[in-house]
């Protein structure tokens, strides 16, 4: 069974409980670049005095859009896990504004994917945050569905 990756990108954007709860939506794809949007919401704010989205939310957005860039590079959905993620917060996001994140996987090996990503309101030329991350490809490595429901080893 195979399906076109483009057809499932919207589900990959917000198909898990966490990404659905955060309201992530696919913003678009341009060749190997992929964009996600998180619409501004009161309960996603970091500092109630400013109305700016939480830096922790920005991290989650950059982590997730980076993973989507890996699937684009792999041309299919494969289980992946973030190995590490560094985020620079260059400036506060603008109050009460949606954020867009764009990512590109610039190197994919059999086991590891290397990604860079940016978060901004209007243009990647004026980013609020930037990320550099690495992902383990095929992270389930034979572990069956439900493996995490058993007590830890």
């Amino acid at each position, binding site marked *: 069974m195979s399906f076109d990756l483009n057809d499932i990108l919207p589900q990959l954007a917000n198909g898990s409980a966490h990404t659905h709860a955060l309201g992530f939506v696919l913003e678009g794809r341009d060749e190997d670049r992929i964009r996600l949007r998180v619409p501004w919401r009161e309960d*996603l704010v970091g500092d109630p005095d400013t109305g700016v989205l939480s*830096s922790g939310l920005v991290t989650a957005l950059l982590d997730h859009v980076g993973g989507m860039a890996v699937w684009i590079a792999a041309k299919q959905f494969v289980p992946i896990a973030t*190995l590490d993620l560094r985020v*620079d917060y260059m400036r506060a996001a603008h109050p009460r504004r949606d954020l867009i994140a764009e990512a590109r996987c610039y190197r994919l090996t059999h086991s590891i994917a290397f990604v860079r990503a940016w978060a901004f309101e209007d243009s990647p030329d004026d980013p609020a945050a930037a990320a550099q991350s690495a992902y383990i490809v095929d992270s389930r490595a034979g572990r069956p569905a439900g493996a995490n429901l058993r007590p830890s080893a």
Partner: protein
Amino acid sequence: MSDLLDRLPYARFLGLQATTEDGVLTVTMPFADHLIGDPMLPALHGGSTAALLEFTAMAQLALTYPALKLPRPINVTIAYLRSGRPVAVQARARISKAGRRVANVLAEAWQDDPSQPIASLTAHFLMADNN
């Protein structure tokens, strides 16, 4: 100190709860379905664990340096060590250096066993509040 996290909407969204003992904060993120990123294993979304670590580092700084109010992160690095199982996560932070302008904070998150962390954080925060 739990008041700080109670006041922050995204910390409430994650359900974070803090306790303090001898000036050291332990922050708990109780398991909730909306934290799941991989429904197959199932595993917590790395973004929820990362946000827990970042809030823990921020809240520990605010507890130790009350004049800071809400420390602003400059950058954070998260290493994911184990997949997060669908149970509660706890986190604790240590301030490794706090200078006049910048603080370096380390934090770890674990589930049942603190010696088996699921993720670690290294972060820098601005010490001046008016930047």
